[in-house]
Every structure is written in C-alpha cells, then in structure tokens.
C-alpha cells in the first residue's frame, strides 16, 4: 500500500495568490494512499525541504508529490531532498502549480480545482513509480570546442590547463575571430591584437590542444561523456607539414583583387592567402573559388614558387572522427550588412559602412594602416556620423532585441576618430545609451565630454548622397523633435549583431535548441547560462546572444569549468529515464516478438538484437534490447511497439495511463 506525501508550496504568494493551497492539501489528504499532506510557504527553502525529509522518515512515505513550480526548475532539488531522507529520488514527482496554473489563471475556484487535478494526476502516477538507480557511463575526457574566436580560445585554454585534451575547430583559416579584427577595445583602449595574439599562439603551442582550422563539424552522435563527432577538414590545398609559412606564394599569387574577409571587404587579398599577418596557423590556404588554376585549369604560380613543394592542388576534404566527452560551442555572431537598410543607402554608398568595417579602418594593421580614410576616395572624413541601433531594437526589422555592444563601440569609434582626425566633427545618433558595465559609463562620458563627440538623441530616417556629401536626415528628440540634417563625409552604422548564417543547421546537428533569432538557447536564462538543454554541450560567447569581450571570456571560462567538472570523474551518472524491453520467465522470455521495427524508429540506434539461447547455446528467440548507454529516453519506440514490450522508466505505460485516468476520474 502506498504511503504518499503531498507537499503543497505557496511559493511566497506566487501560487497562493490564486490557488487555495490549504484546500489543495486538504483535498489531497483525503485520497486513497495519501498519508501526509501539508501546505507551506516555501517548499524549496531549507525548512520546506526539512518538512519533506521529516515526513519521509517519520511517516515512512513511499512516494512524494511536491506541488510547486515547474519540475524543469526544481525537480533535482526535491529529488535530492528525498534521497537525503532515504527515499529513492525517483519516487518523487512534481505537480506544476505555478507556471501551469497559478501564474496563468485568475484567482478562483476553477483554478484551485485545476491545482487539485494536477496534484491528483501526480499522486496516482507516483503510486506506479519504481525505485530507479542512476546509470553510470564512462567519460571520454576530451573536449571539442567549436569556434576559435576569443570565447573558443579562452575555453580551450582553460580546459587544456586543467590537464584535459581539447580539440578546437575553426571554420576560417585562422583562429582569432572577430576580436582579431578589432582596433582597440573598450573601455581601456588597449590594442585588441596585442592582447589576443599571445593567446592564439598559446593555443597553437599547447600540448593538450589539437587545432583544426578551416574545419567544420560534419555530424555528431552520442551523448554526454560519449560523443562521436565527425569533423570535415576542408582542403587547404597545401601540405601543412611541409609549408613553412614563408609567404612566397601569397606574394607571387597573380590574383590579388579578392575582397579580404578579414578587412571586411575594405582591403584585398590573393587567392592563396593568409587572412592576416598574425594568423594562427600562419600558413596559407587556396581559395578555390577565386584561384585561376581551379577556374581555368592553369597558373600554378604558387606551386612553382613554393620552396618546399607544399602545394597540393588535388587535396580533398578530410573527415576526421573523434571521440569526445563534452562540447563547447563558441561560434560567435555576425553583423547585418548595410544592404539590409535601403533607407541608409542600401549598400550603394561606399562611405556608409558597418562598425566592423570602421574597426578595420581604425586598426593599425588595417587597409589604411590605422588612418581614418573613407572607402570611396580615400579622403579623411571631416564629418562623420555614427548610427546606433541600425536594425537593433526595431521590431519592423525583425530584430526587437538590443545588440548590446554597439553603444560602447560607437563611443570608442567616435573617440578614436576624434583622436585620429583632429578638428574632425563626429555625431552619434542614439536611442538610449546603454553603458552598463565596469567603467563603461565613464568611457562614454569621456567621449562626450573630453573628446567632444556630439550625441544626438534621435533616429535617422534617411541617408542620401548629394553633391558628394551624405545627407543624414534625422530628428533630435531632445530638441522637441527638431529635424536634423548633417552633411557627412562618412557614416558608420552600428548594424545589429545577429546569429551566424547556418546557426540553425548547426543547432540541429548538435540537437540543441535556439531562440527565435537563431541564437543558441541556454538551459536557464539565469542559473544555467552556459549550459544547453543537451547534457554535455555548453555555450560560450556571442553564439548565445550578443556579448562583449569580457562577457564572452567569462562565459568561456564558465563553460570550461563545467567541462572540467564533468571530466573530474571517470564515470558519469545519468538519469535512468531510459527504455527497457521486458524480460519474463521461460518459456516466454519476453513478450517481444522480434519484429525489430523499433530499431528503425529509434533516433539513437540504441536498440540491438539479443539472442536468447538455451543451455546448449541454441537460439530460442531473438528479441530487442535497449543499450542503456545510448538510449536517451525519448520513448519513440515505446509508443511504437505493438506488443507493448518496451517501456520507458519514469514514463511507463502504467504511469501515463494512470495519469489520464486520474485526470478525468474522481479518486
């Protein structure tokens, strides 16, 4: 006979404001099998948990139902409490009275009735719960870091420094990411390259880090502690072992006018190229789309000039298979290009550029060697306008969120401009200045007060070119919405930070979720910012949302700690929510008839064939068997099996059936 304890939480007033918690507890107390029922202000608090623990020991409870918030929130908390009191943690269930009831319905009888129903469903379910034991699986202590920007670099180094192996893959020919493109960094104005390059080199030289540049994730299978990844190493068309990075080839390559990605199109590169001088690895790749040899079948200048014979025109993409235990995704973000904004010149005015392009202009290693010169004619702009929120915070553009970093980098840009172009005039159109962060507000004030940047609170409706000037037509909302027109020489758009193209596809490969803007979704917005919903996969940096450098680095270190924590044990404990094929006494052995249709229904290839043999070793019967290491507990096979021979622990036939019965009948 079950002895169930029901614990109804008020959640302060979050539940009790609309649900009569005392009535819920009282009603539950009258049900068959419920021996203890109580309501309390905060079940998750220490005294609340003690209440549960005491009831378990004193009343000898065989099952616990905590009626409080979403199990997605506190199930681990309460299960742990039960375990501490000696009750198998899987004998604890949660009724979601907060998110699914009190917060979404008005106060009233119907809401309390619903709360009672929700509790009853779980009380009846828990009667059919079984004591389960967590599953132990071995951990492969190698991490895969996807993306070699600052977040990926930081995560790789942090993990590697704890003594674990790291495989870092980067889709571009060099690691460094967006940070390597930046001129100076706010709020200290130290040179981005100067602080980043040492880390890049450290990555390359670290004995625990294997670096694959020009490589992308092809596919992933497995589960936490036991992933198998296929990595596509795109062909670089060179033999990296032979290449010394002497740059003979890049100097002699006749195709010289390809817009440089690193310089955001403001500079040119060759077809065989190293993206930037400090690249790691500092070895070239051939851009086959633009290489004369690949287009026309002749040239091979690079091959001729290469002193070590390292050019390999027939090199093919290579697929590397690796076994890893954890993954850090640090794929970063991208910015909207000006052609997204017809009103701002639709990408047709050369002198309307993005913030990232301005970084290149301001960078000492950039196409202008750090001088601010406008792309169209190379003149130093006398008047420059910066537009904040180009796309961001604009529902009409489909980007209602704040891109977060723009306020700061615009202040930096304006400041750099003022420092470099003496007597120049700079204007910033903004909605609000969001400068939350250590020394951030001070930095913006410096731009305004010390460097004389003109901040205009208002939006720009239109930019058009007239008589060689860019007419920036906007409004100053602090001057009673006075229309403002500035005849500028150059305009910098702080275009919205958005998810990478292909982010969706990557998420699907990794089986992680993403938000409506295709940024990867964290497991909890506050308490699990670096975890994903898929165990063993973590997030770092701007792939999760727009992030600045300090945040990206902090996230990366956070993710690294999560990985290191995971790797600190040889075995991993997994929830035993897995499918099981029934076994019975001979001569039946199992009700499974061995049709093995479940094998194709399983998304994880977790179902195998097991041959049941007699003492003479003859096969009596072939039945399905679930590999507990591979099974992730989706239950697709369970609903599919005709003979109901597969069941899933925690969501068994009896449990789910009982939930339906309990929901619609009186008990």
């Amino acid at each position: 006979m079950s002895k169930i304890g029901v614990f109804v939480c008020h959640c302060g007033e979050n539940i009790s404001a609309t649900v009569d918690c005392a009535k819920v507890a009282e009603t539950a107390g009258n049900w068959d099998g419920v021996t203890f029922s109580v309501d309390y202000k905060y079940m998750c608090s220490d005294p609340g948990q003690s209440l549960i623990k005491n009831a378990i020991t004193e009343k000898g409870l065989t099952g616990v139902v905590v009626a409080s918030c979403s199990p997605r929130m506190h199930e681990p908390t309460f299960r742990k409490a039960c375990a501490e009191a000696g009750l198998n943690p899987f004998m604890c269930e949660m009724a979601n009275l907060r998110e699914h009831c009190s917060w979404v319905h008005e106060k009233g009888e119907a809401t309390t009735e619903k709360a009672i129903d929700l509790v009853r469903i779980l009380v009846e379910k828990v009667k059919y719960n079984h004591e389960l034991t967590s599953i132990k699986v071995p951990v492969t202590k190698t991490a895969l870091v996807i993306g070699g920007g600052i977040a990926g670099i930081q995560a790789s180094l942090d993990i590697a420094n704890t003594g674990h192996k790291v495989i870092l893959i980067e889709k571009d020919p060099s690691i460094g990411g967006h940070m390597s493109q930046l001129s100076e960094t706010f709020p200290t104005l130290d040179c981005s390259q100067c602080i980043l390059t040492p880390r890049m080199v450290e990555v390359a030289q670290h004995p625990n880090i294997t670096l694959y540049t020009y490589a992308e994730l092809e596919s992933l299978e497995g589960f936490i502690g036991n992933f198998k990844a296929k990595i596509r190493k795109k062909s670089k068309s060179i033999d990296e072992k032979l290449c010394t990075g002497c740059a003979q080839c890049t100097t002699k390559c006749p195709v010289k006018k390809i817009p440089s990605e690193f310089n955001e199109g403001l500079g040119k590169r060759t077809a065989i190229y190293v993206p930037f001088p400090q690249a790691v690895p500092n070895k070239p790749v051939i851009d086959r789309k633009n290489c004369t040899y690949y287009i026309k079948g002749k040239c091979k200048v690079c091959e001729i000039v290469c002193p070590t014979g390292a050019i390999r025109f027939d090199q093919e993409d290579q697929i590397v298979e690796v076994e890893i235990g954890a993954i850090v995704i640090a794929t970063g973000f991208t910015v909207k290009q000006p052609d997204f904004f017809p009103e701002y010149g639709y990408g047709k005015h050369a002198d309307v550029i993005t913030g990232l392009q301005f970084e290149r202009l301001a960078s000492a290693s950039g196409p202008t060697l750090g001088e601010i010169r406008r792309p169209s004619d190379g003149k130093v702009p006398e008047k420059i306008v910066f537009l904040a929120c180009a796309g961001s915070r604009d529902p009409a553009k489909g980007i209602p969120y704040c891109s977060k970093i723009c306020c700061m980098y615009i202040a930096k840009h304006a400041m750099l401009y003022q420092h470099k172009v003496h007597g120049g005039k700079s204007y910033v159109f903004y909605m609000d200045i969001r400068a939350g962060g250590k020394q951030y507000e001070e930095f913006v004030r410096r731009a305004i007060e010390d460097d004389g940047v003109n901040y205009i609170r208002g939006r720009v409706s239109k930019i058009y070119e007239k008589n060689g000037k860019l007419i920036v037509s906007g409004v100053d909302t602090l001057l009673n919405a006075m229309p403002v027109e500035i005849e500028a020489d150059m305009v910098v758009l702080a275009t919205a930070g958005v998810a990478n193209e292909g982010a969706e596809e990557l998420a699907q490969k990794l089986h992680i979720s993403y938000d409506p803007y295709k940024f990867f979704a964290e497991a909890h917005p506050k308490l699990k910012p670096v975890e994903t919903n898929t165990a063993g996969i973590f997030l770092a940096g701007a792939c999760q949302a727009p992030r600045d450098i300090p945040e990206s680095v902090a996230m990366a270190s956070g993710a690294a700690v999560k990985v290191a924590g995971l790797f600190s044990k040889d075995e991993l404990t997994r929830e035993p929510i897995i499918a099981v094929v029934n076994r019975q006494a001979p001569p039946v052995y199992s009700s499974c008839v061995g049709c093995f249709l479940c094998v194709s229904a399983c998304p994880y290839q977790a179902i195998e064939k097991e041959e049941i043999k007699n003492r003479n070793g003859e096969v009596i019967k072939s039945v399905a068997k679930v590999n507990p290491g591979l099974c992730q507990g989706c239950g697709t096979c369970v609903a599919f099996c005709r003979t109901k021979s597969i069941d899933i622990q925690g969501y068994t036939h009896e449990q789910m059936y009982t939930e339906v019965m309990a929901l619609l009948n009186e008990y």
Partner: protein
Amino acid sequence: MVDLIKRAKELIESSSVKVVIGYEQGTGNKTRALFVENSEDADKLIFDSRCIQNLAAYITKKEIKEKGKMAVAATLPVMRSIIQLASEFQVTDANILVLGITPESKLIEFGNLAEVEKFVHQYEIEIDVRNKEMLDKLEKMTQPERWQFWIDELAPCFKCYACRAACPMCYCSRCTVDFNQPQWIPVPSTELGNLEWHIMRAIHLTGRCIDCDACYNACPLSIPINLLTKRMLLDAKEHFGGYQPALKGEHLMSTYKPDDKENFIQ
C-alpha cells in the same frame, strides 16, 4: 494442380522441406489448409479460385515452425505476406521455400525470398472496385454518420479474434488486447471495446497490411473490418506515396521523412 502435387512430392521425398503447406478440399464447398508431410498426402493438394485463405498465417505458428523447413503454395497475397514477415525477421530463406502461384494460376518456384520480392513488386496493391465504392461512400458521409455506421457495423462483434488469428501480420505472442497492466482495450465486447479493438488493429496494421482480406473472410459475422485497413492503405498512398512489402525496405510507420506533409498541425 498437377505441377504442384509433383513438386510437393519431390520436395518431401528429397527431404528438401519437411512440410508443404497448400490447400485441400474441405467440408461443404470449402477449401482449407493442408499440411503435406508425406508424399501420399500430396495427392490431396488442390488449387482453384476458392483457395483464398492466407496460408502465411501458418508460417509463424509454433506447431508448424517446429516441423522444420516449409514450402508454401503461395498466391500473390500470400507472397506479399511472406515478404512482409521476412522484413520483420519472422521468416528467412533458411526456413521457407515459396511455391508461387501467379495470378494466372501458374506455378512458379522461387530460389529465394529476393526473387519472391521481385515478383511481388510487379504488382501494385490495389483495392477492388466494390470496396473502393464503399470507401467513397463512407468518405461522403458526415462525421456523425460515419460514427453511427461503425457503431452499427461493429455491434455484432463478440471479439472471437478470428480476424487476428487469420491475419498473417498478427503473429504477436502477446497482443495489446491481452496486455492488462494497464488494460488498454476494454475486454468486454461492448461498443467501446469493439471500436477500440478495431482501431488499434488497424493502426498496428498500418504500413504492414497487404490487403488480403483474410480478416474479413475469417469473421464469422462478416463485419467489413477490412475497410479500416483499406482506408489506411489508401492514406499511406496519399500521404507517403504508399508502400510495398520489401525485404530491406523502410517500414512506413517506423520511419519518417523530414518533409512529411500535413495540414492540421498548428
């Protein structure tokens, strides 16, 4: 079927197979299954248009399997059933020899199941005109009319499970109706118990039924339960391009396509 008798005798005498399953004259004007285990019995083998029982139902029967390798005089529906059973690992080349009977009543012996599959694939599974008309008629009814139609049609059902017994695909050793923890299908043959039994049966046969009508022919009350599986067959065709039993095929309901089309999920 002189050829069949001759071949059966050879197979038995040479011990190539232990039993040949075919048809014999039954009582009344019926024909019935015959299990030939010695060459004299082979003389009783017949084949004519009355031989419609799906003999594949015997292939998974314990008592028959225990005899050893079998040969089956198989009409097109029987051959289809055999391929489907093979795809579900219930029969292999090692335990069956197919003596095919073509739609033109010609005997054709197959070396292996792959050949049977090839033969079977020449013919589309098609629903006969009379049943097609009935399906169309049902389609045109309103939802409450269809509901009443089935409540009335299924009312006589007393759950003797002859439909299940006669169906070659219903080889499960424990049918869902025999599962009682929980009791998915109400055991009593009430309106609800009958409806849910037949719905469940139709779902379990979706993508597997080869439309042999064995269930309908077996029903002592002649309830048109084959309409359910026929409907599923047509829907499988409409939504997923249909199916043919195949040795290494993708089973309709245990697989999916990312671009499966529907118009009702919001």
